[in-house]
């Protein structure tokens, strides 16, 4: 390298080409190849200062890129874990929904038991127990068991549902079963259960309307809400 009188510098073409090559490696993010060209250059002159500065810049850029990649990988792992946790929560929610037997007092003296999910013998026994206890506790006079959410039941379980309705009547309350689907209707007729005294209605809405109409007839001028 030589310096002429007007401050211009002259360098060997190979050194310039090496820097250009290093730059091209940097542009495709191949920092290792880039830095291997720039290390141990051995010459100490003004162009070497540029080379050193360029090297430091590339090293810092490589480090920043590496950190960014790590952070992205960590985020990805966290996202996957979060998705797995959400799936678990979803399963648990389904389990809670299924395990619990929600009995809602939709009106004074009117209980509603919406049955959703999968009903096996264990659940149907639990439902009966809870419904009968709640009828006594709330002094309910009407219970509506809505099974719109049930696709299928075992015959013994279906039979038990009818027995539940009869037990409700024994406690002195009315029991409506609403939302029986064709499959369950066939199951019930197939096993030949005695449906005497069991009131079945198309939907929860119909059951409530029937209840209100009958209440109105018993107490003209008063709605179901006023009685208690």
């Amino acid at each position, binding site marked *: 390298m030589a310096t002429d009188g007007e401050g211009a510098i002259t360098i060997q073409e190979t050194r310039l080409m090496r820097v250009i090559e290093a730059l091209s490696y940097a542009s495709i993010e191949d920092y290792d190849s880039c830095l291997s060209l720039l290390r141990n250059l051995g010459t100490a002159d003004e162009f070497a200062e540029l080379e050193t500065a360029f090297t430091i810049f590339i090293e810092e850029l490589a480090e920043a890129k590496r950190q960014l990649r790590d952070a992205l990988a960590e985020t990805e792992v966290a996202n996957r874990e979060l998705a797995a946790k959400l799936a678990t929560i979803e399963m648990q929610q389904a389990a809670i929904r*299924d395990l619990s037997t929600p009995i809602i007092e939709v009106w004074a003296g009117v209980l509603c038991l919406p049955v959703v999910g*999968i009903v096996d013998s*264990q659940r149907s026994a639990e439902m009966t127990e809870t419904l009968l206890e709640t009828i006594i506790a709330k002094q309910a006079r009407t219970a509506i068991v809505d099974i719109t959410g049930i*696709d299928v039941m*075992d*015959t013994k379980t279906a039979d038990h549902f009818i027995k539940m309705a009869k037990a409700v009547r024994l406690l002195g309350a009315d029991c409506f079963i609403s939302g029986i689907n064709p499959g369950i209707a066939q199951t019930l007729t197939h096993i030949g259960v005695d449906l005497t005294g069991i009131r079945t209605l198309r939907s929860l809405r119909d059951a409530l309307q029937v209840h209100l109409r009958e209440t109105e007839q018993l107490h003209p001028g008063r709605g179901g809400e006023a009685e208690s």
Partner: protein
Amino acid sequence: MTASESMAAIAASPAAAAAAAAGAVAAGAEGAARARVFAVDDWSDVAITRHQARRLAREHGVAPRRAGEVAIVVSELASNIVKYGVRGEIALHVAAAAGDGFTLTVVARDVGPPIHDLAIAMLDGHDDRGPIDPATMAQRGGLGSGLGAVARLADSLEVRQETGGKGKQIVATFALGPARGA
């Protein structure tokens, strides 16, 4: 139960039993990777397992009603593990069957005492020794009709247990697929 490897099979039909046998072989050969196993220790496991069983059936194109029956069978078997089996697991295998059908096999294993008398246990309102009286029924929960429901809803049911040993395996098989209207 006299043989060292006691076995009792109750099949809805010979065809279903054959399908079950074919399904078991297929499950062993290439279905292992597709088996899904759920540990069953408490009631929340029962609920989770039945939901996963239903989902698995639906993912394989099984109609809602039939998928519901699969879920009920899984639920009854899982309930029995919690009530009688000490601890155990439910494994679900899906294997290809003849034509474009497939079998879904539910295997319930537990480490509890053996079923004393299977024929009695199968009866509704009974456990493995006889009728369950109302007080015990209320205390245990359920209707005593779990195994009966499994036999009614599945295409075949097989109970395997070692004489005098602990632990048992109950295998319920469903023959599914378009050919069966599922």
